[in-house]
C-alpha cells in the first residue's frame, strides 16, 4: 500500500513539475512576444500622440549671421528661441531645439533633427535690422506629391501646402497682436530639406504697441509680443491639427 502511495506521489510531483515548467515557458514566450511587438506599436502610436514643435535658432558658432545694433543675429535668435520654448512648454507643447548654445550647426544637421523628431511644426528663427515687423517665409520649391523617396535637397516640396497653411496661422496671430507682417518665399537650404510644415520667421524692428514710433529689436515688450503671438499660433495649429485628425507631421 505504501509502495503504491509513493509511486502516486512521485507521479504527481513529476506532473506538477512538468506543469510548472510549461507554465514558465508559456509566460516567457508571451513576454518575449510583447517585447518584440512593443517597439512597433510604439512607433505607430508615438508620432500621433505627441505634438512636437521644432525651433531652429539660425546661425551659431562661427556663423554669426547679420550684425544687429547691439548684438549678433546668432545670439538674438538663441535668446528668442529659449523664450519661445518656455512659452510653448508652459502650454504643454513638446519642443525640440536644434541648438541651445553657441554651436555651429550646418543646414543639413538642422533638417536632420527636424526629420528625426517627426515635428508637426518647424520654425527657423532669424533677425534683421532691415525692413519692419515680422517677415514670414515659406520655401520657394514648387509643390509636389509625396513619393516614397524624396530628394534630400527638395524634401520640403511635399510639405509646401502644409507649410503655407502654417504661415497663414502665424500671420493671423501676429496681425491680431498688432504686428506688421510680410509674407514671402525663399530658397533656404535648412528648411528645403525638412519633412514637416516649415516656416522661416525673421524678426525686424517693429512698431510700438501704441503706434508712437519704431520699436527696436531689443525691446523686451516687442520680443514678448512676438513670442506670445507665435505661441498662440502654434496652439491654434495644434488644435487645427487635432480637429482635422491628421496628426502626423509625416503626412503632408
Amino acid at each position, binding site marked *: 500500500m505504501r509502495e503504491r502511495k509513493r509511486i502516486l506521489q512521485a507521479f504527481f510531483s513529476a506532473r506538477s513539475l512538468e506543469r510548472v515548467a510549461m507554465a514558465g515557458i508559456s509566460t516567457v514566450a508571451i513576454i518575449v512576444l510583447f517585447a518584440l511587438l512593443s517597439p512597433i506599436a510604439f512607433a505607430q502610436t508615438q508620432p500621433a500622440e505627441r505634438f512636437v514643435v521644432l525651433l531652429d535658432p539660425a546661425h551659431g558658432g562661427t*556663423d554669426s549671421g547679420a550684425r544687429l545694433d547691439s548684438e549678433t543675429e546668432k545670439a538674438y535668435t538663441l535668446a528668442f528661441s529659449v523664450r519661445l520654448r518656455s512659452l510653448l512648454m508652459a502650454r504643454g507643447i513638446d519642443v525640440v531645439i536644434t541648438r541651445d548654445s553657441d554651436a555651429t550647426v550646418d543646414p543639413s544637421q538642422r533638417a536632420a533633427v527636424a526629420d528625426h523628431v517627426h515635428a508637426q511644426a518647424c520654425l527657423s528663427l532669424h533677425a*534683421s535690422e532691415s525692413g519692419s515687423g515680422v*517677415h514670414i517665409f515659406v520655401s*520657394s520649391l*514648387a509643390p509636389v506629391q509625396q513619393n516614397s523617396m524624396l530628394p534630400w535637397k527638395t524634401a520640403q*516640396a511635399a510639405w509646401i501646402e502644409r507649410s503655407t497653411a502654417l504661415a497663414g496661422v502665424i500671420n493671423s496671430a501676429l496681425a491680431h497682436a498688432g504686428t506688421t507682417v510680410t509674407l514671402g518665399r525663399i530658397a533656404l537650404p535648412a528648411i528645403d530639406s525638412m519633412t514637416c510644415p516649415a516656416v522661416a520667421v525673421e524678426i525686424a524692428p517693429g512698431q510700438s504697441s501704441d503706434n508712437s514710433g519704431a520699436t527696436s529689436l531689443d525691446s523686451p515688450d516687442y520680443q514678448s509680443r512676438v513670442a506670445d503671438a507665435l505661441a498662440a499660433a502654434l496652439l491654434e495649429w495644434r488644435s487645427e491639427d487635432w480637429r482635422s485628425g491628421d496628426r502626423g507631421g509625416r503626412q503632408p
Partner: protein
Amino acid sequence: MIPRHQSILFIVLLVASITLGVVLWTTLDRAHKRMLASQESAPTQAPQVAPSEQATLMVANDAENSVTPRVFSLPLPQNPEARARAVLGKLFDLDAAPGATHPVPGGVSSINEVFLLPVAAGTDPAAARSSGAPRSGSAAGDDLAVVNLAGTFVSSHPSGLETETLTILSICATLHANFPTVTEVRFLVDGQQRPTLAGHADLTRTYLTSETVPAQGANP
C-alpha cells in the same frame, strides 16, 4: 662784389621759376577738378556710341517687401551679354544711391559679367532638379543667365532673409523683363559657386524667372 649781369640773370631766373610754379599749381588744380567732375558723372554719363533705349528695372523696396517696375532710358550696347550687364549695373546703381528703397552698397561695379547660354546646353540637369521646379516648361530658345557677382558686393550685402531675397528677385525679374527668353538664372561670385548671398538666400540653386516675377507692385 657780384657783377651786374649776374644779378639780372638771377632775378630773371627767380621770376621765371615763380611763374612756372604758379602755372603748374593752376594746371594741377584744374586737372583735379576735372577728374572729380568725371567721377561724379560716371554712373549716369551716357556713352556717345550707344543710342538710348528703354529698359525696365524691377526695383526692390525693403519697407514694402515688394519689387516694382520702373522704366529708364539707358544707352545700351548691342551685344546681349553686355546689354544685360548694363541693365543690372543701372539696377545696382539705384540700390547704391542715397535714399534707396533697398540699400545695397556697390553700384555698377557689383557685377562682373552676365553670360547668356541656351538652356538645354547650359543647364546642369542635377542642379535644375535640385531647384525642385518642373523642367517641362523649358522650350527651345530659352536662355540661362549666369550672373557673376563681385566678391566685394556679396561681402558688403546686408544680411537677412528679406533683403537677400529681394536682391535675387530683383535681379531675376529685371533680366526677365528685358530679356524674355531668359527663363533660368544662376549666380557665381568672382567666378566661383558660393553657398549663400549673405548667410541666408541659397546661391547654389537655379532660379526660374517664372517663379520670381511678381505681379505688379505685389509682394513676392
